[in-house]
């Protein structure tokens, strides 16, 4: 049933940015009814290539043929009209506009009076959301949605163009299992309709589920391509990284003597709904040298829990937090830091980084006293700190002075990690730390986390990916609807279902609050 004629053909694409050759003589072709996986490490050039294909960058060398016709998209609109749609790696939504307004932005349906036909727009959006199995009102403003929900809206928006070529740049980085399933269903449909799909993800297992072909990029160069089921995960990793790496869970024992953190009956009011709680009577303990996993479906309340512990919403909480045995009121992030806490937030662009700063300034922002003496900043100390972490975390950038906005998604995430490792915390809270990070870097982070924990660091590791939970954690807490629903010791025998079961909310509510 597959119609294997190339819809889009790319020849010798080269793209340079000041200081980096992001793409170097890349050629590939996309066939209808086929999902092609583009894989590569952070900074390999995947997003850049996709931005060229979708008209975001219109300055490049090389040719693009759309259905054997030479094209050079000047802007995204041209690409869309041709039939190339992209789901960007970073969200591109207008916070204060509603879902339907965002989905149809720039293509609003009009009534005979020349004003927007809201009923129609709403109806169409609702249909699309239906297809995405996303139960929210089309009139909800975007800023009220969680990261995951926003990602789904992005996908909806791309589909609403019903394009011939659909580029998905890490669409699953922010959404959890069941949404992924929905997405895969949709991709299958699209393939059946003979559309060409580009699928970028660092979650290799997904590629084997949903794609037929793969293309490997490394340092902006084309490495090789082929049939996905003619290869294995390890081979792919090898091709991406250029060397062997083994992801193994060596068994480790942390002796639960010293209790670093103990939370008693912690509750958090919901601002938006009277006597509704985002967190309800949360109780748990974190021990010295322990890596505590925190699993849950999207919207379980994990981020809120982390943020509360880090001193946000201090006015809306009840319950006690004991750090090393004594009771503490944590009023602000500063407070939390002084007490040895660190939080790598879920949303690196909004909460993690000052995008206009370079790597150096972002890294030292948490520890300016460390890099200054006599009250004055010391440039050398500042740079050394950054360079040190760029090496240890393998951050790919032209120099410590590179503006983080210009870094690839994954490298940005590493900078966030760097600035928190720099504070030498006793309790490290990681909210989805491996989101958008390549397999190699993930492994680095796992190793780092383990190493730090061996030296007595207590880690809370929030993740929506069971494999990595099982890979790094000694123990896993499962959350659903703001409650802790399970507390499971991780051993060789621990099964994914066991954890998943606890994560499923008891009563499936239809509103998202």
């Amino acid at each position, binding site marked *: 049933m597959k119609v294997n004629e190339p819809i889009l053909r790319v020849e010798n694409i080269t793209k340079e940015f000041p200081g980096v050759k992001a793409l170097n003589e890349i050629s590939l072709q996309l066939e209808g009814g086929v999902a092609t996986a583009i894989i590569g490490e952070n900074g390999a050039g995947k997003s850049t290539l996709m931005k060229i294909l979708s008209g975001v960058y219109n300055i490049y060398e090389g040719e693009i043929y759309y259905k054997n016709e030479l094209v050079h998209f000047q802007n995204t609109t041209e690409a*869309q009209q041709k039939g190339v749609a992209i789901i*960007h790696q970073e969200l*591109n939504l*207008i916070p*204060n*506009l509603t879902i339907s307004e965002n989905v149809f*932005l720039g293509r609003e349906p009009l009534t005979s009076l020349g004003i*927007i036909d809201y009923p129609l727009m709403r109806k169409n959006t609702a249909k699309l959301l239906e297809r995405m199995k996303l139960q929210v009102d089309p*009139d909800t403003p975007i800023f009220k949605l969680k990261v995951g929900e926003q990602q789904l809206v992005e996908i909806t928006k791309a589909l609403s163009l019903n394009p011939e070529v659909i580029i998905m740049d890490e669409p699953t980085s922010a959404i959890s299992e069941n949404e992924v399933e929905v997405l895969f269903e949709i991709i299958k449909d699209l393939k059946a309709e003979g559309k060409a799909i580009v699928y970028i993800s660092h979650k290799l297992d997904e590629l084997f589920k949903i794609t037929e072909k793969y293309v490997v990029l490394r340092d902006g160069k084309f490495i090789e391509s082929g049939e996905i089921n003619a290869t294995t995960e390890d081979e792919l990793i090898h091709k991406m990284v250029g060397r062997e790496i083994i992801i193994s869970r060596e068994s480790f024992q942390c002796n639960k003597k010293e209790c670093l953190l103990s939370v008693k009956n912690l509750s958090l009011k919901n601002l*938006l709904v009277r006597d509704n709680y985002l967190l309800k009577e949360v109780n748990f303990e974190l021990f010295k040298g322990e890596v505590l996993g925190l699993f849950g479906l999207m919207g379980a309340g994990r981020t809120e829990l982390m943020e509360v512990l880090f001193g946000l919403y201090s006015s809306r909480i009840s319950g006690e937090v004991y750090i090393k045995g004594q009771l503490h009121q944590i009023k602000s992030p500063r407070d939390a830091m002084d007490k040895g806490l660190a939080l790598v937030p879920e949303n690196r662009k909004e909460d993690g980084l000052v995008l206009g700063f370079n790597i150096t300034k972002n890294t030292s922002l948490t520890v300016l006293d460390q890099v200054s003496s006599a009250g004055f900043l010391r440039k050398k100390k500042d740079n050394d700190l950054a360079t040190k972490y760029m090496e240890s975390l393998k951050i790919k950038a032209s120099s410590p002075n590179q503006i983080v906005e210009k870094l690839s998604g994954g490298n940005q995430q590493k900078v966030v990690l760097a600035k928190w490792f720099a504070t030498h915390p006793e309790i490290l809270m990681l909210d989805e730390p491996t989101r958008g990070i390549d397999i190699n870097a993930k492994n680095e982070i796992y190793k780092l986390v383990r190493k730090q924990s061996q030296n007595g660091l207590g880690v809370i590791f929030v993740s929506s990916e069971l494999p990595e939970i099982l890979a790094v954690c000694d123990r896993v807490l499962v959350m659903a609807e703001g409650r802790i629903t399970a507390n499971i010791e991780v051993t060789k025998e621990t099964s994914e279902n066991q954890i998943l079961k606890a994560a499923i909310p008891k009563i499936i509510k239809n509103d998202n609050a």
Partner: protein
Amino acid sequence: MITLKKHLSYSAKFQSLIALFVLCLVLSLLSENFLTTANVWNILRQVSVNICLSVGMTLVVLTAGIDLSVGSILALCGAVSATLVSYGLELEIFNLFVGFGPLSAIMVGIAVGWCLGWFNGWTITRFKVPPFVATLAMLTIARGITMLWTGGFPINNLGKEFAYIGTGWFLGIPMPVWITAIVVIIAVILTKKTPFGRHIYAIGGNERAARLSGVNIYKVKMMVYAIAGALAAVGGIIVTSRLDSAQPNAGLTYELDAIAAVVIGGTSLSGGKGSVMGAVLGGIIIGVLNNGLVLLNVSPFWQQVVKGLVILLAVIIDKAKAREE
């Protein structure tokens, strides 16, 4: 939940309503002359000009821009219309004389405003000049041209018809109020119901995203500044007609009042958030305040102090209200 969200954004939109209400309540208790129909019309007539400017300013601010030139454009366009209506236009080169009726003179005035605003938009989009600088430059330039045009002297005796715009009544409502009402209604529809309007919000909310969604940022911005200019001209014509005289230094520092109205109305200067109605309320608050302080016979020096404090208070109340929800 959904209704709640609606409610939230609603009360956010009409933030300053409470403040206004409280203000009026207090004033009507303190002075029996405040809540008279005469005074209500009086206030509305007085705020009409500022509201015209504020509406234009809202559009600009929603795109995360700013327009400091409205005051000067107001003066220039007022002067142009006045000259045309009272002297007509003389083109030496073709030794040709063109007479103007009030309406055509007004049209020209508004056209001039549109063009000046368009020029603002052009420098801002074409040369990436920060709106603050571009419009600040226009502030000086337009004022200078006004001086050159008028030689520093007012232009007077503009005739009955022209005066009607500013001083006349229609169906028991003052003309300026009519004009402003129409402007506001159009602006509300424009911002809330048309793609153009949504694009304004989109640009202010996330310019990059708007561009990637295929919004023609340049066109929208040009339009917005042009409209602001045209509305400034409308204001200028109202002022001129009310005084039956075009003052070369009319509209000095009006830009501040206009921006104040916009911000008090809950529109954020970083763009994307806010509404035309908000600006209207903001404008009315300022007008009511000015009027009230006079009725209460507060001495001019104290007036400034009180005015500042009240505005501060008004906004604080709103914020508190907004937060508690």
